């Protein structure tokens, strides 16, 4: 239960960010009368939004040495994502930071650490920094890590913590949708309702549309999923998840998926689907060898 007082100036900004309306988050970031803390949070959100949009260099160049610690962490994430070649050095500086007790406790640094180690698929290391939570972002990240580890039991525990803090928080709702999707069965419907609520409350984003579409797919309703995804594609023709889900959806409705797949390969060669498809091909060839 959260008792509230006074307006939450960053509410919209955060919501935009969580729901994938990154450009809207950036555009509406000029909020008057913010406290110092709020300003730092705002800047972090804006820069994270830029990262989400893929503008890594902009973030790297905008955040200078003088910026606050959390912002430095955000910059680190940008550097990690911008140059996979140099990730060793990025990770080592991240580790240095984490080792420093004065800054290592900062929620944003821990969040970034969790994110980066998740990319590294080192869930152990990621959880080391994030498991204790403290902010909604951290809890949500934990939920996701546990889902990735196929430990929905742990994810559910995290979610319950979030629900205790603020059941109506956008991240709580999102996280419960993720978990519902991960455990499947009748819960899919609940996930769908959550995305439906979002779509009624907030402007449509391709994240929401994708969420709904994924629910539809899991409920076996591929036609509706396709409609939703095409709508998402209209909003953002390069969104990797939209393309990936369209590939899957097209396969199920018996249409050709190659256009979307090629588009995805071109724009996001590192996407999970592309990687999975590539490894599947190798896998197939290998299996073929055993029969030769």
């Amino acid at each position, binding site marked *: 239960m959260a008792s509230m007082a006074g307006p939450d100036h960053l509410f919209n900004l955060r919501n935009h960010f969580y729901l994938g309306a990154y450009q809207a988050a950036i555009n509406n970031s000029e909020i008057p009368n913010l406290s110092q803390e709020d300003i730092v949070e705002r800047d972090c959100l804006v820069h994270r939004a830029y990262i989400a949009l893929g503008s890594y260099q902009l973030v790297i160049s905008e955040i200078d040495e003088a910026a606050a610690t959390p912002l430095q962490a955000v910059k680190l994430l940008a550097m990690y994502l911008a140059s996979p070649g140099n990730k060793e050095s990025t990770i080592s500086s991240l580790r240095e930071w984490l080792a420093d007790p004065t800054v290592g406790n900062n929620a944003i640094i821990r969040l970034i650490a969790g994110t980066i180690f998740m990319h590294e698929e080192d869930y152990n290391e990621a959880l080391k920094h994030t498991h204790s939570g403290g902010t909604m972002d951290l809890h949500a990240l934990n939920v996701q890590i546990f889902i990735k580890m*196929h430990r929905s039991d742990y994810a559910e525990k995290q979610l319950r913590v979030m629900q205790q803090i603020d059941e109506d928080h956008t991240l709580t709702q999102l996280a419960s949708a993720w978990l519902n999707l991960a455990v499947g069965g009748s819960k899919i419907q609940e996930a769908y309702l959550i995305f439906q609520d979002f779509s009624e409350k907030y402007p449509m984003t391709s994240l929401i549309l994708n969420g709904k579409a994924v629910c539809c797919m899991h409920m076996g309703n591929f036609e509706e999923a396709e409609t939703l995804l095409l709508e998402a594609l209209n909003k953002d023709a390069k969104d990797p998840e939209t393309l990936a889900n369209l590939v899957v959806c097209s396969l199920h409705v018996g249409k050709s998926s190659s256009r979307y797949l090629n588009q995805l390969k071109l724009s996001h060669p590192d996407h999970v689907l592309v990687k999975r498809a590539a490894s599947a091909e190798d896998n197939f060839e290998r299996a073929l060898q055993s029969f030769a």
Partner: protein
Amino acid sequence: MLTKFETKSNRVKGLSFHPKRPWILASLHSGVIQLWDYRMGTLIDRFDEHEGPVRGVHFHNSQPLFVSGGDDYKIKVWNYKNHRCLFTLLGHLDYIRTVQFHHEYPWIVSASDDQTIRIWNWQSRTCVSVLTGHNHYVMCASFHPKEDLVVSASLDQTVRVWDIGALRKKTVSPADDIMRLTQMNSDLFGGVDAIVKYVLEGHDRGVNWAAFHPTLPLIVSGADDRQVKLWRMNETKAWEVDTLRGHMNNVSSVMFHAKQDIIVSNSEDKSIRVWDATKRTGLQTFRREHDRFWILAVHPEMNLLAAGHDSGMIVFKLERERPAFALSGDSLFYAKDRFLRYYEYSTQRDSQVIPIRRPGTPSLNQSPRTLSYSPTENAVLICSDLDGGSYELYIIPKDSVGRSDVVQDAKRETGGSAVFIARNRFAVLEKSTSQVLVKNLKNEVVKKSSLPIPTDAIFYAGTGNLLCRSEDKVVIFDLQQRLVLGELQTPFVRYVVWSSDMESVALLSKHTIIIASKKLVLQCTLHETIRVKSGAWDDNGVFIYTTLNHIKYCLPNGDSGIIRTLDVPIYITKVSGNTIFCLDRDGKNKAITINATEYIFKLSLLRKRYDHVMSMIKNSQLCGQAMIAYLQQKGFPEVALHFVEDERIRFNLALESGNISVAVASATQINEKDHWYRLGVEALRQGNSGIVEFAYQQTKNFERLSFLYLITGNLDKLSKLMKIAEVKNNVMGQFHNALYLGDVKERVKILENAGHLPLAYITASVHGLNDIAERLATELGDNVPSLPEGKTPSLLMPPTPIMCGGDWPLLRVMKGIFEGGLESADRGGTVDEEDAEGDWGEELDINVDGMENRDIEDILAAAEAGEEENDEEGGWGGLEDLELPPELDTPKASANARSSIFVTPPQGMPVSQIWSQKSSLAAEQAAAGSFDTAMRLLHRQLGIKNFTPLKSMFLDLFNGSHSYLRAFSSSPVVPLAIERGWSESSSPNVRGPPALVYDFSQLDEKLKSGYKATTTGKFTEALRLFLSILHTIPLVVVESRREVDEVKELIVIVKEYVLGLQMELKRREMKDDPVRQQELAAYFTHCNLQTPHLRLALLSAMGVCYKAKNLATASNFARRLLETSPVDNQAKMARQVVQAAERNMTDETKLNYDFRNPFVICGSTYVPIYRGQKDVSCPYCTARFVPNQEGNICTVCDLAVIGADASGLLCSPSQVRSIELQKWRNLRFAVKLLENASSFRRSIASVADVSLRDCQKGKNFTVSYLVDSLGLAKKVAESISRKVSFENKSNPDSVLSLLRSHGFTVSQISSIITDYPLLLIADGENSLGPKLQFLQSRGASSSELTQIVSTVPKILGKRGGKTLSRYYDIVKEIVEADKSSKHEKLCHSLPVGNLENKIRNISVLRELGVPQRLLFSLLISDRQPVCGKEKFEESLKKVVEMGFDPTTANFVGALRVIQGFSDKTVEEKVNLYKRLGFDVGDVWEMFKKFPTFLGLSEKKIANSIETFVSLGFTRDEIVVMVKRFPPCIGCSAESVKKKTEFLVKKMNWPLKAVASFPQVIGYSLEKRTVPRCNVIKVLISKGMLGSELPPLSSALSITDPAFLNKYVMNHDDTQLVRELIAIFTKNRGSLTDHLKQ
């Protein structure tokens, strides 16, 4: 109390409601009678003729009359229409207290201080009766509403009931004389025709008021003793029922409520009290500060009351009548009485949902005020005023429309108002703190938020938003952002109605309607003089609302109007098209159809939907001055034009809209000068000179006309005009025209004729008309004027007009779209319309600009306002943050948590891994990414070796198995496994099989397009399609058995096409080899094709052969073609070929083609393989090949290896189930053998164990016999040897030879023996032989016999004769049906009788997956479960629902029980078990474990129990035993006894041990229990197990090998081991020996 109306005046002593109109009469102490309209709140009239106070007043119920009585002893009867007193009745001798009209007769009853009651006839204006008897002032008297009774109250402390029946009789049968006589009598002697019926004594002081109950025989009275008394009466007596105490001073008036079961009283103690008439308890008290109450009145029809007091009166209601309701899509939830009800608009169905209040609870003002409904959760919030505002939360059960009268335990709590703000969240107002609590459906507080303004009610305002109301404004507040989204100053808002798109909101106050946008930007305000009651938005965005007496509309621009009037108030719930749905005050749903034309029309105008407007003008009846005025006022005169008949108005409108032609038409009709003139002016303005001319002509306005001609240069007409002027003798006009024409001569002439000779002269001379001038000069003589010198005269000539004749360029008049549109519509043209639209377009632009300007200002203003607010709130924010300790705690806690040790949990199993573990279907393995497993499966099942063509399918299946979820920003995407067959009820965390991208229906589609491509001759395309089907099938999964068969059929169909098309394509390549071409064409016709395709193939083969002069062959094709009944031209061609061939039946070349000899075609060499020749086939597609192709990849499907071993296509989980079961059985068996082998190996190796070998000997013999004589595999032979064992081969030999002699092949015999080993020991000569012979004698062919017997060998176990033959027939049918996989046919082809049922039922079971083994035994058996039809289906359904697995024997067992017993029997059985101490759950569990146990007879059960008891088990123990091992109750008493006694008496196990391990009762004594016990005994005797017996369960439940390991083999002493083994094995099978010992 809900005060509806209040007046200030002198003391009010009498009151009366008008029965129909919203009027009330109030008689005052001052002598004035006031007539009020309480609805409008206006004083209609006042009647001031009484002197002194008027105490009684009453309306007549049908005539426009009322009566009054005052302290001036006068009774006056008034006509309120004429505003005057009609007459006065005199007779009373003191103040008159009350007067009342009779409801039927022309009577008035009056009560007076003169101690009498008088009844008057107001028609004859005489007193008809005087009722005497009271001995003090009579304070009140009134007629009974139905009967001939009068009740009166007097200060003599009594209430009297008078019977006036006699009076009525007299009046009803009026003989004038008699009447007059009675009147006289009554006058003289007092009322003999009205007698006192009852005198009610009980009040201690003077009684002020008494009143009848409207329907029941009850009287209520109020007196100066401060009491209200309730009296009851019957035919003979009346008595006091109860006393209501509570008033603190004299009770002035008391009455029964007309509609509710309550009593209302008022008193000089300044209060009104409401009492429950049944329970006689006080319900409510309303006090006034200073005013004593004197009088009460109850409205006869409506729910209204009125009370008069010292300084005026009030009209009030006790309870709100507006039913609480909530709308959701097509349904309405509303509260009525104690129930929540549900109404569906589309069906107009009304039903009760749940009770919301317990019956009999006091109800005054506790009925729900508002309702809020959440459709997704099916939850309802009901708010009422109870306990100063509270709400109740109900969850409507799914199967909602329950009749149950049980009140749900609602979640109830206090709170100002509660409303859903999201699917599963609602907000509750805490008025005291101006806070709102957000709660979830468990009624737990999720969040608290303070509101921006002091709020006294909250309303829904979109998801997550609240509309907060205070006295003078409303705000919309976003609960999450904690921001005010909009704010509006309003009067006190009572109801909030959102439009369905949530874009607009209507705020209803008492007298105001405010329409605003969703951000509370004011759109319009409407004021109503009458109270606004309700409203709803229609589909077009018009707000439809009701006042007390009207249904009205409000357009978005604020225009409003009346739709219709209302008799009674209604509450609109929804507007749908022309129908208004509403609730009335009784809570009934009604649908009112209205004429929406007017407001739709106005709306269309407003929205500039002119097409709409036009069609409405054309099609509907719109008329009336109001509409015209509206149109004119709104600037649409051209539209108004279409409504008007009156020419003058038409003319005006036409001029206004510039429509000249209409104006001309109207002007012609009117033909008045003024109108012509105005027409002329307008025409001139527009430049329409023709009309101007016409108008001037009509008015004969020559001056203007001539000027017009002048400027238009129409000189001809001008000169004509001049002529006219001349004729008319209009000199001036003539002159003017001459001047205009420049005709000097004429001018001179005119001047001359007019006598202006000097002027004429000057004119003439100046213009050089010298001859005339001279002539004039002579006429003038001396008076010739002199011309001024020095000036050159010039002729003034009018300028030549630039344009002559016709109109000027017309002024662009705003041409009505309507005009143009209507006309063009009439003409059917569209050009005009476009023009017109262009015109409007410009206008629109301007409007838009204007709007924008305004909007921007608004936005700026709003932005400024917003900034100011933010400033303020920022300042407060800091303070409040400080007050929140919990947030300070958070970081600390997290820091602690972080330092504590955290262990990352190990990763879970990915779904794909679960899939690949669970599944044995190739497609599912591929989807899971286990390609190698998938390939292995396909290889094993279908012999596929070439997987390259399947690559894309594999990859697609894999790619389609996961969706991708972007979860947290910038973190890796989460792939989620998509499962197949999702349903709402699938449970979470249980993994279903993967969703696959290929399904069978797609293949069907492909097949169709393949057919189409074939028909159109696109063979390459067709081949590609068919091949892709063939390549997809291995990766298709279907659900049912039936579909499996369909898939298998499809393979064959497609294979034929692929082969055929491959040959056809090949043929086309071989242009230079005509022989081969013919052959291939010929073979093609032997592929199994669809008839149209076959025809084409035949046609082509015929053509090819004919061309190659192989006429005989060609004619064969032609004949075959003709057999397919081809289309005409094909048939014609075929006939020609046949004719040609008949003449010359030869073949030019020899083909490798013999159509008489059946053949199949080799799939790779394309040569025929005639019947009898050897071939090999493709294990997958079943294509056939010549033997030398064995080992190659099949050229037809391009997948499988020709001739490879394969187990067959596996494409359905149902197949897998049975196979798995089979596998599992095999596995278990194998494990056992393995165990045996390993455990025995040691012992056998170490010691030469003779006895063991002995035991094995029989078996070994059997095994070797089977292996040798039948060529069975050793394992199979061993398994058979467990069932049947023999030591010499004579009998088996004879059986086998018998079988052989009947034509059974070796493989058939081995399958028979495998299935039915007992046959080997059957009596070959006497039993089997005759049976087989008998079957043969019935005409069974040898092949049929062998096939059927080998399928169901058990048939041979049946008795010979009829039974045998019957079953033989059945099996035959099934086997044949199996082959053609057409089970449906089965039923029809069989003879009638129970067999039919049996067969059908069995095929149903087969579909369900019941194993063959059980099926045939069912078939052969005569027992219940598969007989009957309905019963069977019913039972089957039950058993399936109970969750029995069809592949187990329990399924059949359960079926047997369920079908064998009626529900009643089952119930009895269950009851029996209940009596024995089981609960229903136990019985159910037991039933699931061991279905047959329910089938036991009561006697048997009783016997068993008795047996157990006699053995010393307690009842409880028995129950536990049966629960653990249900079959134990079915064992025979003897066996139970034997086994138990053995264990207890011989082995000394305690009885308890048996009780806790009842399974021992099921173990075979000879085979298991005794041998093991012997071993144990020996061990104990040798002290090797200690003194204790081992636990019963461990000794007996483990398997034999485990037992041996544990008790026998683990001893070092080989001697002992040998001994033990001897004991263990020796006594097996010889129980009797043991018992003898």
